[in-house]
């Protein structure tokens, strides 16, 4: 079966190494991946603050396209895109009036049959069962798995494992040979979009996250969201300013960490693209 792929804007731009590592890992596990043709913006945070119908029409168009292109299941690595697509599916399923309006606006049929997977779900479904046999170099580091918000909220809709103290990323990393630390900042706010408008606030918010991870001996941060990554990695100067010290813990996408564990080339995984040098 072919797994559909919705990259969204980040994975084509600032976090292209996330896309690279997702595709590299998928390739290593013989997962057929096909990018949805003619995809559009998921609406991200802008649309749902301005126009409710638009905020559902945009993701619905992506889902309609996937349906039309014969995809039963799509993986959406960006946590924000995943949130928008899943919330849209949820809303359209319970509101036929909205569904009609959206279908009409898009001029595309929408049945809601396409399964939307986040990266953790995708990995657990297609990678975890064969992970052990693929691991050539245990990812033998203390890791702080950071989940952020988009992957797990709102709980009523996304049903992520455990709202306030999620576990599934930790479990995955454990299987790759890592030692996940027990810490309290797994779901604290990284500052998200304030990265653009109030960099100092991001320095403080992300600083608390990096600071706690460091205090508890983490060697690597593991993330599954482009926004989290850019705040923890790209804003490291502001973070260090807040912390008053130079902290050089690298931030890896979970697919990059798994890629290292199964022996993929560093360049294939895009590790050279990070601001904080990946020394592991």
């Amino acid at each position: 079966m072919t797994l559909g792929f919705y990259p969204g804007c980040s994975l084509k731009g600032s976090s292209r190494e996330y896309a690279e590592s997702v595709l590299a890992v998928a390739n290593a596990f013989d997962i057929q991946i096909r990018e949805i043709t003619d995809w559009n913006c998921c609406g991200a945070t802008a649309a749902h603050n301005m126009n409710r119908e638009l905020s559902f029409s945009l993701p619905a168009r992506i889902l309609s396209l996937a349906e039309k292109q014969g995809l039963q299941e799509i993986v959406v690595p960006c946590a924000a895109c995943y949130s928008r697509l899943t919330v849209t599916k949820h809303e359209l399923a319970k509101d036929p009036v909205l569904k009609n309006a959206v279908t009409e606006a898009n001029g595309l049929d929408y049945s809601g049959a396409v399964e939307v997977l986040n990266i953790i779900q995708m990995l657990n479904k297609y990678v975890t069962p064969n992970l052990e046999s693929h691991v050539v170099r245990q990812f033998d580091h203390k890791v702080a798995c950071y989940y952020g918000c988009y992957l797990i909220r709102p709980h009523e809709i996304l049903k992520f494992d455990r709202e306030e103290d999620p576990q599934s990323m930790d479990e995955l990393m454990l299987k790759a040979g890592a030692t996940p630390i027990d810490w309290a900042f797994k779901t604290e706010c990284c500052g998200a979009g304030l990265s653009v408008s109030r960099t100092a606030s991001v320095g403080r918010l992300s600083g608390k996250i990096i600071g706690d991870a460091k205090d508890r001996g983490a060697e690597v941060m593991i993330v599954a969201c482009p926004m989290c990554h850019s705040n923890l990695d790209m804003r490291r100067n502001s973070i260090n300013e807040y912390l008053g010290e130079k902290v050089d813990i690298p931030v890896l996408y979970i697919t990059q960490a798994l890629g290292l564990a199964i022996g993929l080339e560093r360049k294939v995984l895009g590790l050279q693209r990070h601001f904080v040098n990946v020394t592991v």
Partner: protein
Amino acid sequence: MSKIGVFVCHCGENISATVDCVKVAETAGKYDGVTFSIDYKYMCSDPGQTIIKNAIKEKGLTGVVVASCSPRMHEPTFRKACAEAGLNPYMCEMANLREHCSWVHEKGEETTEKAIDLVRILVEKIKYNQSLDAIKVPVTKTALVIGGGIAGIQASLDIANTGHKVILIEKDPSIGGHMSQLSETFPTLDCSQCILTPRMVEVAQHPDITLYTYAELESLEGFIGNFKAKIRRKSKSIDEKLCTGCGLCTTKCPNKKIPSEFNEGLGTRPAIYVPFPQAVPNKPVIDKVNCTYYTKGKCRVCEKVCPTQAIRFDQEDQIVEVEIGAIVIATGFTVKQPDFFPEYGYGKYPDVITGLQFERLASASGPTLGEIKRPSDGKIPEKIVFVACAGSRDQAKGIPYCSKICCMYIAKHAMLYQHKVHGGKSYVFYMDIRAGGKMYEEFVRRAIEDDGVNYVRGRISRIYEKNGKLIVNGADTLLNAMPVEIEADMVVLATAGVANEGAEELAQKLHVSYDPYHFFAEAHPKLKPVETNTAGIFLAGACQAPRDIPESVAMASGAAVKVAALFSQDELTREPLIAVVNRQAAPVYSSCVGCFLCQSACPYQAIEREDIKNRAGEVIKSVAKVNPGLCQGCGTCVAFCRTKSIDIQGYTHEQVYSEVMALLNEY
């Protein structure tokens, strides 16, 4: 041939202002079967009733239709009047000309026409009425009280003191419930055990109370006044008659590291144990799950040291069958454990505790002998945070209701802390302070003003450990949601009060209803707070909703009065308006074909199976039979019956059909 009397009431001007009562009476007088009709200003008055009585006697009436107000108002009045004149009370029907006609319509021809219709349908119905007798059921004057907390204790004592027998069952080894765990009580700060233990002893010594501890309800059948209960007396592994309660076994038991339920896991107990020194009865039980002999087959130390040879390893559970007339459910509540709150440490920080655990820390009989020491290292906390509404009033946690007691006990906790730890700093994070109750608000103010407890209005978002401190993150919503971070030594969560595990199962055993949170449902939220919808079963205390001690006690006394009222009668009288399955002469016996669809439809388990036998004792036919003690006359079975074999007395198919036809036929 019917001789029906029609009595039309003006109800002052309530009816006559819009209905032509004279015309109604005149028209009714012309109907077939009506031999007497009259209108009068107040039919319910003494002279009005006399008119009815005299007409019955003089005209030999076989049926009476009173056209006046709602039967809810005066049906008992007129039926009594008929009975006094020698007519069966169920031969009297009321046409509701007031609520159903004069009050809701303008004056006019059509209004009078409607009033005439209302009278006519009852004239036609009453031709098919039959004399009915009230149902009498005997009463077993013994009450079963389930749960030996303060509510169950109070209910048992109150019932027993009216001279009736009580069987009190408690699932734990001792009665006392949560109240025995509390340190001091709000709003007076008197010692909880000091006021409770005399009551516990009273229960044990009361000649009319049979106490079964370590016992649970196995099953229940029957109906009001006539229940049969099976009680499982769990094996205590001791012979209670021989045991003197010397306690030697508990001191010699080698397995002493079991978390104590009474101390909410903050202390330990041996495998053979008495939950607390003032326990009633003060005799130990063996916890089979943790006992070395039961798990590994070796040890028997208690047996060796027992001076009276009272240990019985081979003792089995015993089922006791009892007959009872009423039940009081007083099974109480429990609190959510910290592992319900991942954001507050998910049960992994030993110094994040529940309110109930704090009670044990503050209690003189507790694991620290009343000193406030934190569980992790026994240090006295210099800074303590109390979190109100931990789970309560939180839709996302599935507990939208207020747990009611927390605002008060948190104020008490903070006060006790300030009294015991001089120079300590305490913070209370709250949403609202709900201190409704006598002397309650004053109590909270005292905590704030006299004892210097810092009340912060806001929620806690996260608690985590750092360098041996608990970092408490929250917001002060009175300071524009300013983030607050406190480095605390200990955190007390006022976790939500919830229904006991197994409450749902118990409700189903007892056939009482329960709410979505598994609290037992009262029959009416205002006017029947201690009754359930099942006759003869009553509620007391926090099994109905979170309740504090005064409320639980008041409820228990209320339930006890209901039981005493029930027991004041030798027989119960009930309206005979119940379902009956028809019986016919042989060889048909009944038109019932025995499909028992009615049995599955009946919400009251009132339908039984009756085997009709021939003289040789062979079963010829199985048919449905309605238990008159259980039937509430709802009529669901009637609607389900495919052969029209069931009728509600007073509302038979014939009666209802004749009413409908009376409306359809032109006069």
